[in-house]
């Protein structure tokens, strides 16, 4: 098992650091180019959602991204310390409804095998995203 952790401010100009991280790690895990792109956008969208919705655009908060490469899966945990999010309110939008916004959750769910919203930490939330390695499930 290998663990990589990135701690960064909730400032959109640092999102590229997360993208570079997930892109490189998914390549190491042996995912196809298409899967690497989908994983990159999923993790980027998840972090952007924290900035927009959990921290309401406050750029001085903290996001921790932890990548864990296990025998059969890549697990990505995004930890925030903002207001509690009710998982019931997080839904992908109907794609037939053409309008700006609301695509992030759909992109996250399309890329990942499992997505769990955990608001059990005393402060903040954590989003656990899992993608099984090629041939891992």
């Amino acid at each position, binding site marked *: 098992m290998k663990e990589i952790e990135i701690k960064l401010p909730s400032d*959109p*100009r640092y*999102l*590229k650091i997360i*993208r570079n991280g997930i892109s490189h790690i998914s390549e190491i895990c042996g995912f196809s*180019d*298409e899967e690497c*792109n*989908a994983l*990159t*956008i999923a993790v*980027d*969208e998840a972090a*952007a959602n924290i*900035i*927009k919705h959990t921290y309401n655009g406050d750029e001085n908060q903290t996001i921790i991204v932890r990548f864990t490469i296990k025998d059969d899966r890549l697990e990505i945990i995004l930890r925030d310390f903002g207001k509690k999010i009710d998982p019931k309110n997080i839904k992908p939008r109907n*794609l037939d409804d*053409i*309008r*700006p*916004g609301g*695509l*992030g959750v*759909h*992109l996250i769910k*399309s890329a990942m095998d499992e997505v769990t919203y955990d608001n059990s930490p005393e402060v903040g939330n954590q989003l656990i995203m899992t993608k099984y390695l090629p041939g891992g499930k």
Partner: protein
Amino acid sequence: MLEVKTRKQNTVAIVEIEGEVDLYSSPQLRKVLLELTKEKSPAILVDLANVKYMDSSGVATLVEALQQVGKYSGNLKLANLRDAVKDVFELSRLDKVFDIYQSTNEACSAFK
């Protein structure tokens, strides 16, 4: 960093974007596109040849511009999508909503 340049080719306003369009940079693109739709530019072509990455805020910006253009019966087309950007449009099922072309020349001819 994102670079957004606009040039005219006959009646077509070509918006050339270079860089990565994400939550940080998409407002810059939005500003340029909304200026064009505000002046009711009849034909807008967004050239994505040099866009390596686009997130949902970038896609939302293009959807918003498309809707604005529709209000005055103008036209907005996209050209030169790289695979990573094409993937986002396909995953969002927006590849059927936008007119997408392989080249700027092909897209410019399609305005006529």
